[in-house]
């Protein structure tokens, strides 16, 4: 009997011990650390994390919601070169200029651009604090910060030309309550911020050539575009010239399609493009190509653009932007700028051809117009496309010729809408009675979330 008692006692002790271990280890049991992500308290601390954080900005810039697809989409189908034929028929309200604030892609793009800005803000705020080492030189650090300033400038540029003045957020977001009551800045204030960022970027970056990353020369190119938008013609000419004159690194290809055809990428014509690969894919080809070529064909040339581009007396070699596919026995035009259905088409942000046309337009617009100079630049682009010199002579004719040239040269590169709005021609060319429709509506979901964010005129009710 004694043995039984000791046996019971033995187990009673064991029960107590195990229960107690259970209790004390329980709170520890609840500590689980993530493996695929890391705390936001320790983010950019050394050379490696600084470099990866900057790549992270480009990754957002190239996402499907931004340059990967949706941002070019909303600009493209707002003008007359591209039509949307996909299942989200409501997207066509952009083409008819009857878009409502609840249109899905607007919110998608808005979010993606601000995500890019927040990533840039993180780099701008944190990388200067990273100590310099033998391998991480002052210059290397400045380059990273300069790229972030450039990318922030580009992002705000895209916001302001799409929506007008926006909320200027210049600090990284650390917690949910960070953004409250920030009013929209004016268009001028927004452009002033873009200009400041471009200047900072210019001072921090060095004058190297890298077509998929921002360098000082990329800043020159974007400044040329910036000054064109601001109608600061001499500066537009100056900055365009800086890049055009660097003919060691930047030249137009002999054939128009040499910058994209036959799996071309990173060509000498490219000033800034985004690099895609099998892991990070571009969905443009998927959206533009017919199903027999591995796509869904939801985005297509407008009938008018197809007519222009397919006429080689008008468009020259730019007919190579089209491909004809028989559908139910009828030939249908599809766009062929993006055709790599494995998703490796680059996103073309700035090509050398743009700088020629910027300089042509600036020269023609000077208070004392330089018409021969303008025609010279314009004809470089026309001749390259296998077309004769322009016949325009007056300032107005030359500016119209440049507008038409832009339309064809950048047919599917999201230039047309912003060009027409910038030059004040959109209402006439696209038949938009209401001037308010030259800006797109602020996404309705954002108006609901952020009371400080006011809608653009003409979309309020």
């Amino acid at each position: 009997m004694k043995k039984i008692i000791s046996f019971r006692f033995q187990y009673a002790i064991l029960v107590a011990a195990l229960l107690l271990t259970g209790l004390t280890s329980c709170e520890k049991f609840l500590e689980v650390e993530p493996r695929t992500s890391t705390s936001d308290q320790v983010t950019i601390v050394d050379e490696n994390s600084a470099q990866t954080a900057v790549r992270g900005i480009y990754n957002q810039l190239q996402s499907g919601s931004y340059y990967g697809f949706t941002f070019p989409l909303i600009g493209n189908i707002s003008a007359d070169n591209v039509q949307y034929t996909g299942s989200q028929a409501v997207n066509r309200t952009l083409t008819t200029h009857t878009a409502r604030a609840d249109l899905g892609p607007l919110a998608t793009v808005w979010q993606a651009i601000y995500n890019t800005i927040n990533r840039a803000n993180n780099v701008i705020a944190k990388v200067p604090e990273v100590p310099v080492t033998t391998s991480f030189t002052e210059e290397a650090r400045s380059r990273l910060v300069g790229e972030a300033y450039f990318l922030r400038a580009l992002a705000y540029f895209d916001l302001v030309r799409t929506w007008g003045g926006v909320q200027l957020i210049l600090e990284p977001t650390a917690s949910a309550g960070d953004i409250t009551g920030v009013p929209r800045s004016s268009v001028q204030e927004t452009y002033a911020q873009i200009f400041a960022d471009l200047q900072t970027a210019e001072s921090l970056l060095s004058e190297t050539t890298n077509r998929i990353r921002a360098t000082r020369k990329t800043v020159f190119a974007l400044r040329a575009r910036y000054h064109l938008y601001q109608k600061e013609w001499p500066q537009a000419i100056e900055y365009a010239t800086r890049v055009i004159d660097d003919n060691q690194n930047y030249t137009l290809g002999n054939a128009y399609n040499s910058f994209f055809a036959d799996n071309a990428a990173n060509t000498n014509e490219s000033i800034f493009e985004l690099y895609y690969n099998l892991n990070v894919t571009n969905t443009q080809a998927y959206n533009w190509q017919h199903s027999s070529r591995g796509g869904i064909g939801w985005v297509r040339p407008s009938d008018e653009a197809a007519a222009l581009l397919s006429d080689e007396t008008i468009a020259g070699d730019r007919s190579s932007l089209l491909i004809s596919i028989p559908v139910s026995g009828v030939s249908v035009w599809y766009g062929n700028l993006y055709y790599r259905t494995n998703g490796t088409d680059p996103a073309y942000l700035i090509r050398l051809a743009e700088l020629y046309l910027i300089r042509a337009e600036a020269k023609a617009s000077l208070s004392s117009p330089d018409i021969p100079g303008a025609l010279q630049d314009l004809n470089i682009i026309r001749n390259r496309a296998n077309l004769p010199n322009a016949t325009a002579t007056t300032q107005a004719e030359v500016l119209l010729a440049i507008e038409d040239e832009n339309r064809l040269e950048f047919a599917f590169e999201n230039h047309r809408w912003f060009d027409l709005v910038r030059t004040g021609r959109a209402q006439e060319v696209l038949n938009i009675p209401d001037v308010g429709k030259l800006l797109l509506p602020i996404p309705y979901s954002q108006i609901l979330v952020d009371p400080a964010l006011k809608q653009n005129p003409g979309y309020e009710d």
Partner: protein
Amino acid sequence: MTNYYKQRGIYLFLTKLFFLLIFFSHSYAQNGGTEISGKVLNDKTKAFLPGATIQIKGSTNTVITNDNGEFKIVTYKDLPVVLRVSYSGYDAREIPIDNIKPVVVELEETATQLSDIVVVGYGTQRKRDLTGSIAKINAQEVAKIPVASFDGQLQGKASGLQVITNSGVPGEGIFVRLRGTTSINSSSDPLYIVDGVFLNNTSLQTTVLGGRTTSPLADINPADIESIELLKDAAATAIYGSRGANGVVIVTTKKGNYGSKTKVDVNVSNGWVEADRSVLPNLISGPEVATLVHEYWVNSGQPERSPFRPVSEGGLGAPEEQKTYDRLAFLLRKGYIQDYNIGIQGGGSKSRYYLGAGYVDQDAFFKVIGFNRASLKFNYDHELSRNVKIGVTNSLSRSYRNQARLGDGPQGRLWGSAINNATYSPTHDASGALIGLENTYSLVDNYDVNTVSLRYVGSVFAEANIIKDLKFRSSISADYNLYDEYQYWNTGTSIGSAVGGKAISSITQNSAWINEQVLTYKKVFGEHSITALAGNTLQSNELKNTYAEGNGFANSNYKLISSAASTLASDSWTKHTISSYFGRVGYAYSDKYFAEVSFRSDGSSKFGKNNRRGYFPALGLGWRLISENFLADVRWLSELKLRGSYGLTGNQSGINDFAARGLWSGGSPYADTYGTPLAGIGPLQLGNDELRWEKTAQTNVGFDAAFLSNRLSVTFDYYYKYTSDLLLQKPVPASSGFAQYWANVGEVSNRGFEVAINSDNIRTKNFNWSTNLNISSNKNRIEKLPTPITQYTRDWVILQEGYSLNSFWLYEQLYVDPKTGDPVFAGQDENGVVTVEDRKILNSFYPKFYGGINNTIRFRQFDLSALFTFQYGNYNLNLQRFFIERNPATGANATLLNRWQKPGDITDVPRLVSTGYNYTLDQNSRYLEDASFIRLKQLSVGYSLPAGISQKARLTNVRFYFVAANLFILTKYTGDPETNVTSNPNAQGLGGFGTPPQPRSFQFGLNVTL
């Protein structure tokens, strides 16, 4: 004493393994005494009742009957004594014994469920003792509807349970709600527990199937299930604390009985499924569609875009010259269903077991898709001594699915390809070659998407009586699922043609384990009865995925990723843990007054440090009036009991495991120089240290009543659930660089009543007719939500304060102007323009009430049962119609034949035109339809051989049966109201775009019991 050492040896062994056990030896010698012997029989059939319990009243002296229903019991008391004879499913009897002659005890089957034993959280109770709201579904009642998972079989079976099968795909996820939807972002699915194992109910699917997901419950073979309990109110569920808010479904599998004869049950059925044509899309002929397309372009002022010009001009000829190509007819088939199950159960004096094996093969009623499952089940209990019991439960299954994309999405849509093409457009060209890759014929030939799910669900436990009335139980259980998905897209598909062939392999492992310790105390002092339990559990769930993709294959003979030109790989990992304490104390006085208090504390690794623990108490009260003297003389009343409860439960499922953390992640690569991608990082989500449990307070009042010797019984409950601190992805201004973060915002209420009525309408020797009716209502309301949340593309569904969840947000089409044929919308300004402010919240997916009615008739050897299920007052936005009506060239429903054609036409289908709002305003209320329905869910007829004949063949029972499911439906809805385009719980009610409806099925079966 050798006995003691032997047991001690076993003990040490067990302790070393993983168990903690306590053991007390209570052996005593038996000398002398009086032996009483006898037999226990069914009073009607005179069949032996093996395993019946015989107790000498007033003592703990108990024996059970052997295989032949015989027993012997020795008592030391002096005669006379009273024998209490009880058997599950029968009314217990007390027999006075004053001599030692063998006795024959005949037991009567229990007439109603009221005295059944029901499974509750961490134990069992007599139904009459319950203070909470619990419904029990017996396995025999589980239906034979062609869905693979048992939850789909429960539609219409119990009050408070809403079950919607989302499509006609076997093994696909099923929408289940117990008493409404309490949450927006957290899961509102009930908690499923199989033999004490918390079952993972989140699909492991990664394959894109058009927004549809598979059901993890399909891994469980319904044939192994003994009973299913639904725990509904807080008194019943608060013991499950943080996982109880959406109700608990407890599944108990077959265990066998101690001291019973081996019983072999073989059940074989074969049959087929086919389309129910009344719910198929009503596609129109080629010439009809061509006429519409032509009219569309002519009305749009662009007749040159109509292909219906003379052939000489490069057109397709006149509309009426077109042929009809019926892709849907090609896609449909008769699908075969086979179901084989064998169950062997039995037990000796110290052990019992159940061994089950099953195989089911179900084709869908259209090509390519199919499901099969092979399963094994083994349950075993053994008594090591009078005081120690050990046991295992095991279920192992392999589910295989042939899959295809249904629902939404542009590529590889099997069902969509058959209905979203104009019927005039040919499928093959003149040479017989297929036209296009998104061609139904091509997809059927080339589809190669499949999944194997290997699942183990099991537990080991040990149970010991520490001292009299105090029991300790410890268990470890596991739910392991290996989910192996494979896709091969050859160059005959558009997905494959883009990259020269694509193969994807995705392997997901979900491993969950739970360790549980429970102490249970039961004591009766005279009129007082006390039960108490206390315990703790530790639970861990780890989810891991490895993904590999290969692009570029030589040809379709090479299908493994190792043969691909280029490969990609990625992986993911996540884990959460829960640590809990719980307890319950129940008190009953004189079988009249009942009180129960339960409590649970849960700590979860998901929450911010400040708020890890949640505390969930509940109180339940019951008053059994029938036991009161003042009702003793009311002979027509056989049961009357009032119940009431209040308690708190919680929710944490559905949010990601690290939702409270501020995180940065990798996965944002970019290159420094062209051609060389390098790693990149960026912000992933904002943190919230204050993130805490979603809490649901629930009040329940109800009564159970039975009349006329239990022939009519009624259970009624009214409940009010108020959920606060909703776990929500609260939107933040996008200018922050984030879209949202996890926070506790918002409140939702659910209130409703439930009635269940069981009636034995006729009960005679040869003819029985019984009716079960249940009907439930639930009213859902979003009480607080700072900003509305929209769902799905085009924001068709909105969640907004003051409205029900899953409400539709639409432009209301008032009428079609008979003069112009253009639609008129509410809120149009003088220019006919509508803006987003004109959108209205119109109706909701949730019904006003729903339920089921089942009639069972037995006439001699025949039995017949018919189950109708119904919903009333629910709406669906008919996306199937939307996608085939918005442009006649991409489909065309018969509805379009009623379009406006000339001034004076009165119709709600606008003039066909490409401009204006007629067919471009996607959020048009024209597609919102009343989706109320009543459906003959199941009809079965059976014939059992007379006992004399089957016993000659030495068989206990032989039954032939025929079961048909979904024979007909009455509804105003165009199509099948029980189809949804997505598994997203917040976007339910988006009716059936690209989604096959419920099939009809017919099965013949034979059930033999040895």
